[in-house]
């Protein structure tokens, strides 16, 4: 083929040119008669799978139903979300704490669902933040972000957070190597001063809590993507690298010089042994761990100051390299755990490695030298075989559990199906246009549900009605149950879905929380009953203990607030039924609204800066009398002597009398409940 002689850049421009004209015709060709029927989910029926797509530069995650392509929910993760107050409410603000301060945005890339014995178990979802290196955990019973852990001393945590088969670890690697610890050095001293870290974050099996277990200090390459072994290869991690040239400028050209880059192969069980033996160095650093308390819904933030570093030179048999074709992207392990696919972005061929052969080569010390004390395994010795000229720009591969692999090709804009064992190409279908990752439900696990495949495309062009210069990224759904892949649906997505994982709905649906049990609400500012609603002043802080139920807020008339006060509206939703959130907005708030789920308490800070009477209201259409669900707060001048008063449907109560009554009553109740609980 001629492509061999074209430079990669020329190849990209040729294909971009090709795609911008006349792709319409080929769409018509690939869509067959009953495509709509295959993607049809009748009104009121549920989809068979949940697909969780990362949002790329949106920082969030979206949940879609497959095969319908219905958008089910956007889950805010790394970006503040005024739509429900995430990151604006007092409870969730600390979720954004990092060693750099409050960082309200990130770039979310790779979704990893928790696994038990190499299969998705539907408990948690993990996703990385690229720019300010972080890993987040979403609880799949509530679809809420409940934890974010910063990863210290790395830069661009692209290569994350790849999970092991029993969710023991989330493995990640630095995209950019940097001086560690950070220091003021000329950039051109890259080779002397820069290095990269590979990080192992442990996951608590009961609660899912994350902890940075250890970091491995590696040569200053760019670590790109990873997968962990499964079955026979459990206990090993495989990470692709690029820029083994160690260039620091015009990487487009300078990091594409060598014919091959390297794949790092890590024996993490060995690393655990070294850790237990104390063969690590402890380094002073700073990173934040933000965790939501399950009973109060309040996020607490803790600065961590130490990290454990393992150095491969001191820890033999822990890390190896093997050459991999030019500038690899994906590095994917098949369901049996035997084959590892290296997708060399700029190579015409794809290398498939054999775990058994790699182990044999290690045993026989079949090495071609070493890099910084890390042995480099002989390329041919570890190779299962080469998939010759499958397409241009292979990016990512997943599996159907029937012995087939599916790879996206960015430059030639297609998905290719091939046989892992025989390395024979079985089918190819165009995508529109330039796919990055693809996803098959369970496609990275031991037991894929090989029914559908979604290609997530980077370029949309003419696929939908135009919406100005910026277009929603397109995704294409293929039915892969037959011999040939069949395009059955095309749908727009939010942000830049970088990678997705899809899971059988049966594993998630039964655990869905419908509302929070109000009797279990341990929020310190909860108002567990309307009779307890009240307003308290502490200096210039005013705390409003407010309740919401269809269709009123209590109290709904408040006086005695002054300019310069910090008013905290603590809103408790007293409802105990599914799908009855209440909202809260107050004029002049410079942050956002609150959306409060049934049984939950959320707090909005309001700092009135002018005198007057201001309205507040419920923002979530909750009932026929939703429009009536509102109230007023009176703001007086700073030096005013208007007394603090509040009420609902009655004369405004004065602070002292009601507060006394409240405390007395609460005390009695506590004693009463305590004795009845015995």
């Amino acid at each position: 083929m001629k492509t061999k002689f074209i430079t990669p850049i020329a190849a990209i421009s040729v294909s971009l040119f090709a795609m911008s004209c006349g792709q319409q015709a080929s769409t018509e060709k690939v869509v067959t008669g009953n495509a709509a029927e295959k993607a049809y989910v009748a009104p009121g029926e549920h989809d068979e799978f949940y697909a969780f797509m990362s949002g790329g530069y949106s920082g969030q995650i979206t949940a879609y139903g497959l095969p319908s392509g219905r958008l089910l929910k956007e889950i805010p993760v790394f970006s503040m979300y005024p739509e429900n107050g995430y990151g604006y409410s007092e409870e969730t603000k600390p979720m954004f704490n990092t060693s750099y301060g409050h960082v309200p945005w990130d770039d979310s890339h790779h979704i990893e669902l928790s696994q038990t014995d190499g299969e998705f178990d539907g408990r948690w979802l993990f996703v990385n933040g690229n720019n300010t290196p972080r890993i987040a955990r979403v609880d799949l019973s509530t679809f809420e972000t409940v934890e974010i852990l910063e990863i210290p001393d790395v830069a661009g945590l692209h290569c994350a957070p790849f999970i092991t088969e029993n969710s023991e670890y989330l493995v990640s690697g630095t995209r950019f190597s940097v001086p560690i610890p950070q220091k003021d050095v000329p950039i051109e001293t890259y080779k002397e001063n820069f290095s990269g870290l590979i990080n192992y974050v442990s996951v608590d099996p009961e609660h899912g809590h994350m902890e940075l277990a250890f970091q491995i200090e590696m040569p200053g390459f760019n670590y790109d993507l990873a997968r962990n072994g499964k079955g026979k290869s459990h206990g090993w991690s495989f990470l692709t690298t690029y820029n083994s040239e160690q260039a620091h400028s015009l990487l487009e050209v300078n990091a594409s010089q060598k014919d091959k880059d390297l794949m790092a192969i890590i024996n993490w069980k060995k690393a655990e042994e070294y850790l237990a033996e104390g063969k690590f160095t402890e380094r002073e650093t700073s990173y934040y761990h933000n965790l939501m308390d399950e009973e109060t819904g309040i996020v607490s933030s803790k600065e961590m100051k130490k990290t454990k570093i393992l150095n491969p030179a001191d820890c033999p048999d822990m890390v190896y390299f093997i050459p991999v074709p030019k500038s690899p992207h994906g590095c994917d392990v098949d369901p049996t755990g035997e084959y590892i696919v290296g997708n060399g972005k700029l190579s015409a061929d794809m290398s498939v490695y054999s775990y058994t052969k790699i182990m044999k080569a290690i045993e026989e010390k079949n090495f071609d030298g070493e890099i910084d004390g890390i042995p480099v395994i002989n390329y041919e010795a570890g190779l299962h075989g080469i998939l010759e000229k499958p397409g241009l720009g292979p990016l990512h591969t997943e599996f159907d559990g029937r012995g087939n692999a599916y790879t996206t090709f960015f430059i030639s804009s297609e998905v290719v199906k091939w046989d892992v064992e025989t390395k024979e190409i079985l089918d190819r279908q165009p995508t529109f246009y330039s796919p990055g990752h693809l996803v098959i439900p369970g496609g990275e696990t031991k037991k894929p549900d090989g029914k559908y495949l979604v290609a997530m495309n980077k370029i949309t062009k003419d696929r939908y009605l135009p919406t100005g210069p910026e277009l929603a990224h397109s995704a294409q759904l293929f039915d892969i149950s037959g011999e040939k892949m069949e395009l059955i649906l095309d749908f727009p997505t939010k942000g830049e879905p970088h990678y997705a994982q899809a899971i059988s709905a049966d594993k998630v649906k039964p655990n869905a929380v419908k509302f929070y049990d109000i009797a279990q609400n341990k929020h310190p500012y909860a108002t567990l009953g309307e009779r307890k609603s009240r307003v308290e002043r502490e200096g210039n802080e005013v705390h409003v203990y407010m309740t919401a139920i269809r269709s009123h807020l209590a109290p709904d008339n408040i006086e005695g607030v002054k300019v310069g006060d910090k008013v905290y509206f603590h809103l408790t939703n007293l409802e105990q039924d599914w799908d009855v959130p209440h909202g809260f907005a107050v004029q002049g708030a410079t942050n956002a609204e609150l959306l409060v789920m049934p049984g939950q308490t959320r707090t909005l800070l309001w700092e009135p800066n002018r005198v007057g009477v201001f309205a507040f209201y419920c923002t979530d259409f909750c009932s026929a009398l939703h429009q009536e669900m509102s109230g007023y707060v009176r703001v007086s001048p700073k030096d005013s002597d208007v007394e603090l008063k509040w009420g609902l449907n009655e004369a405004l109560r004065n602070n002292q009398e009601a507060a006394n009554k409240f405390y007395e009553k609460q005390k009695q109740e506590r004693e009463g409940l305590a004795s009845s609980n015995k």
Partner: protein
Amino acid sequence: MKKISLSIVIVSIVALAACGGGGTEKKETKKKEKTEEKAEKEVPQSIKEGKGVGAIDHVKLTEELDESMIQVGESIYDMKCASCHKLSDQRVVGPGFAGITNKRKPEWIMNMITNTDAMLEEDPAAQKLLEECLTRMPNQNVSVGDARQILEFFRKNDMETVGSKDGAIES
């Protein structure tokens, strides 16, 4: 104890009913069947007896009030009911509770609390209240056990507000 085993059965029935709300499709077909059947369907015996519809068909009361039940009942009332129902006879969102045990049988009260949606669809007395109040009573997911404690609190409240209780049982 008999009472305990009965309430466990009832609780599980309520739990089943709650699960059934998952699919709108199910709900729709249920509704359809109901309207079609309505014409020929007989009024359930329990409604004729003024007990409403639901899992509770018989509540045994003791003349003497149980203080510990009242305390728990009041705390649940505070948390889940007080927003809309006052303890006087004043109607706010829903009717006031003063004298309720003289107007409604204990079974009706507990069915209304634990089987709200079905009561609003089938029981004429509940429907009449909805017409008066115009706000559909929300399902507050009160267990049968908790509803019984609330009932005890209502009996005490009736003694304090109107001076008599349980007047609906004889009628």
